[in-house]
């Protein structure tokens, strides 16, 4: 892991932002940061005392505190079942209890099925920084990253319409080579695909590979990933009764 030379646990967001402004890096659950073998010395800001782990509904939205763990998501009955299931599938039991939704968003893992589930639920990310609070759409944040010196405080998702995931993996619990998650509402069909870009992306349900240029690896070549994106998108959309 990066060699922590200092550890801070602020109790207010303001304190945390001050520390981030001084070059510290945020520490959420630790499953990514503490697993990193980069030996660079860093000062860490642990966000666990900021009271950011609540999960609450608000009209047709659900607000997931950034420090809510994937275990919290997987076991919370207010969540759409597709999101809860994706949180469970994201990590095994011993890491799910540590990893947070905010950390998952920050990590922008290309294979994250949880991010895909959040995308199809029209997720928006609450961010607070030196200039104040703002809300960024999840696709924008995944594309551009977190503004420097800022913190994710919550992820809001739209309720209504269950999501369904179809995926291809080496084994049933393996992180999919490609997955397609679809959600159908009165307003339309959302499809998010993993394994085809630097991070999960929303795609056109009828032309899911348009604009995609995945890089291949030992689990799947570029062409194969594109092929999977088409097949799995069609299946996921059909499963939610969508347009394909």
């Amino acid at each position, binding site marked *: 892991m990066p060699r*922590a030379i200092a550890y801070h646990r602020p109790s207010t967001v303001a304190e945390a932002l001050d520390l981030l402004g001084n070059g510290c890096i945020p520490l959420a659950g630790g499953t990514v940061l*503490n*697993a990193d073998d980069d030996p660079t010395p860093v000062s860490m800001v642990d966000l666990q005392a900021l009271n950011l782990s609540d999960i609450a509904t608000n009209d047709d939205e659900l607000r997931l505190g950034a420090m809510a763990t994937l275990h919290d998501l997987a076991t919370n009955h207010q969540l759409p079942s597709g999101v809860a299931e994706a949180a469970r599938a994201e990590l095994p*039991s011993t890491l799910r209890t540590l990893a947070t939704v905010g950390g998952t968003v920050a990590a922008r893992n290309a294979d994250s099925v949880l991010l895909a589930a959040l995308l199809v639920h029209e997720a928006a990310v609450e961010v607070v920084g030196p200039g104040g609070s703002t809300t960024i759409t999840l696709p924008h944040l995944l594309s551009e990253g977190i503004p420097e010196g800022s913190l994710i405080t919550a992820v809001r998702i739209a309720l209504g319409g269950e999501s369904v995931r179809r995926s291809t993996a080496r*084994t049933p619990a*393996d992180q999919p080579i490609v997955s397609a998650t679809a959600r159908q509402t009165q307003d339309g069909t959302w499809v998010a695909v993993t394994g085809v870009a630097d991070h999960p992306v929303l795609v056109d349900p009828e032309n899911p590979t348009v604009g995609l240029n995945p890089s291949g690896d030992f689990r799947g070549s570029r062409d194969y990933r594109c092929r999977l994106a088409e097949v799995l998108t069609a299946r996921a959309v059909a499963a939610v009764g969508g347009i394909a």
Partner: protein
Amino acid sequence: MEITLELNGTSRTLKCQPHETLLTVLRREGMVSVRFGSTSGETGASAVLLDGLLASTEVVLAAQANGRSVTTVESLNVDDGLHPIQAAFAATGAMQSGYSTPAMVLGALALLAENSNPDEEAIRDMLSGILDRETAYVKPVAAVQQAAAVLRGEQAEPFRPLLVAPMTDGVHAVEIDPTDEAPEASPAVPRVVPSREVPKTSVVGHPEVKVDALRLVKGNPAFTDDFEMRNLLHAKVLRSPHAHARIVSIDDSAARALPGVHAVIHHGNVARIKYASGGQSYPNPKPYDQVSFDDKVRHVGDRVAAVAADSVEIAQEACRLIDVTYDVLPAVFDEREAIRPGAPIIHDEADTADIADAGRNVVHRMTAQRGDVEAAFEKADHYYEQTFRVHQVQQCPIEPHISVAWLDSDQRLVVRTATQVPFHTRRMLAPLVGMNIKDIRIIKPRIGGGFGAKQEMLLEDIVGHLAIATRQPVRLELTREEEFASSRTRHPQTMTYRTGVNSDGTLVAQELKLLGNTGPYGTHGYTVQTVAGLRGLTSYNAPNKRFDCEVAYTNIPVPGAYRGYGAPQALFGLESHMEDIADDLKIDPIEFRRQNWTKTGDEMNIAPHLGEQGVLEEELDEYPTVNSDGIEECVAQGARAIGWHRRTDRSWREPADQPHIRRGVGYAHSMHGTAIPYLDMGGCSIKLNDDGSFNMLVGATDLGTGADTVLGQIAAEVLGVPLDDIRVYSSDTDMTPFDTGAYASSTTYISGTAAMRAAEVVRKRLKERAAMLLGIEIPCSIELRDRRAWAPDGRSVSLEEIALDSLHLNEQEQIMGTGSYVSPDCPPPFGATFVEIELDTETGQVTVHHMVMSVDCGVAINPVTASGQVEGGMLQALGYAHCEEFALDEAGRMENAAFGPYWIYRADEMPRTDVFLVQTMEDSGPFGAKAVAEIPKDGVAPAIRNAIVNATGVRIDQLPFTPERVFNALHAS
């Protein structure tokens, strides 16, 4: 900094550094049940309950736990007894090495606190974060179920084998009624198909709890890293970033100047002593192509230098400060390319002898034959030739390699190390560190899995050099990344089978042409390929056979010993080849094999010509024959359990409601070996204690297999006492008798016979002393049972009375016996493996739904540990077939040196796995036993491959069956 946490119910204030993990701090506080598996936490061996939830402590800073509650399994160890969860894990055989058992117990504790009656899915989800290479999760699931029942106040069902009625007479095939179903039972319950030939026994054949269960389930100090040393230094190894390079210079001055560094070693200051690192019998197979530190590196991860320092972090920093100048050379990774003209020469040094052709990178060349295959091919009605390619995978013990060395008060070098071969290690280490064998002591504590990876002298010379240099204890533990890059792996191979067969299905000739890839060093390279030849050409009778093999040097991470040792590779090719021949000849695939398989009374007609002591045909008086087989019964039990009849049911294979799904069942035949004849040797000593109990010392190396338990059962049976009266200790080169070590499926058969012989010596003397006490003239008429010596007239004397008399009262003596054994035989166990798969034709994804293996291992000395061996072996074999692979980039760097990218099966995705133990009586084995540990590795890959053929008609001759490979094969056909 200081942190305060509630540790096992008590508030504790602890000092720690900001970078220290919770794992580090807990272990420093004596919570040794919390164990390292990988820095990224995926193994779960380090899991504790953090605020009541299971969490891997490798990825938690100790500081993050400040103010929180931490529970380790030590919290359950309030007295000598076991918590019901611990008791259930012990009773069901849910642990083998036990390295990760404390994490599983804690997971169960948390789960059952929340849900007193969890379903299997919930239990498997809880276990999903605790990787296990040993049990296939079958018995841990049963343990949690049993614990849940007990905690609900229900009566726990005794965990005992289910006896299954034989379906055959042991010789003839039977027609299986499709409506007949296997007896319903939990997969965890060993299914034993009894044989009338097997005599009744009291301890042997019974599901005894492992003798090391208590220490493992309690998380007591047991493993190499669990014992504290004063003034301990920590070592790290600087490893090569290049696949092939010459070291032009090393400047270690900055590293040496770093405060806290005690020693830096490399090729400039360590003697150049040639050796081969494979833990094998004297004389080790040549060539001796390694040195502790070389001026050339031959794979990414190869050793360059090592440092001993006050902390791991200082040692790491010192490694970074070593300035190495490399002359990077071209590298080659594929064995076929390595032997072509113009390939880079990997061993161009002058001081390595016995390389077959160094200029072509051919380290070994070997042939063996019987009869004339070419002439037979000419005459045969049909000729088949088929080439297969198998890949590189790793053993992945959850406990990485770890060694601790120090000089004792007599200035002898002591190495406590996770090894399968303590005696070989002692002998091989001596010249490297410049000491006599008598001045070296190797201690093997409990080992967290080995599977062949630890049949290697991998770290012991490094810690030995550093301990001698610093005069302080030195510890070296591999990270998971190092484990992948620098420990050992399974040999990739390219193999071609050529077979002549007559139209009636009779094999007349078979040849295996093999090109093995031994990576940069020849360790195990010779013997693994010979075993591949042996297994690949012994399963079936053919009067003409030939093995033609070359072994190539390449620049991949080093292959070595891996459970199965060449057989899984060879039998993937063979069983695929036989399936395809049967298909072409329109003969039922099992019937075709039946016509040709080697069975009782048949010669193993190429076996003597292969191996470390291979002989020529003209030197041989007679060929060894098979003395026992249960293969017909294995096939019948397996076929019924899998639903073999469905293979011809098109409506099942092609479900109408899922047009992209195809289903299939596949079969593979396995015939393995039991130990290496005339080579593997085991020793045992047993002594009587005052209370009539016994200490038993064995050199055999229990890796978690249950070997100590099995050997104890054998001795207990001979001595007429319960297993609890035998205290088994293994192994320590200063104290225990010699044993070649744990490999080649030898322990039960070889060390078990040694244990039986030692016990027989003790039994003889006990009878003589009993005769003295009872006034009987014929000691041999006395019988030992129930801790007593019984005269024919019904009088008896207890073993305790004999002990007190012999140690304290009359003609005092220590009753003790030693035994050793080397076998002239290699009785083969047999197996029938069946799998059911589902295949997505649009994506190539293969899902394995069910695996069944029936094994004839003779008499299973302990059916619970034996079935556990089969289950764990099948999990590893499933990974080999389906998802595990080393992915190297163009420069030879591993792209997936972490669990996750390198995927091993988890609890929440394992297919149902059923095991049947088909008894036969092998007269040459102790109480009828043959081997069981390796044969489960052999059949899964070809059975899956053949199930894919059944499902789709597509033949895939390369492993693993990852989605894109299958997709490409489907769409190429």
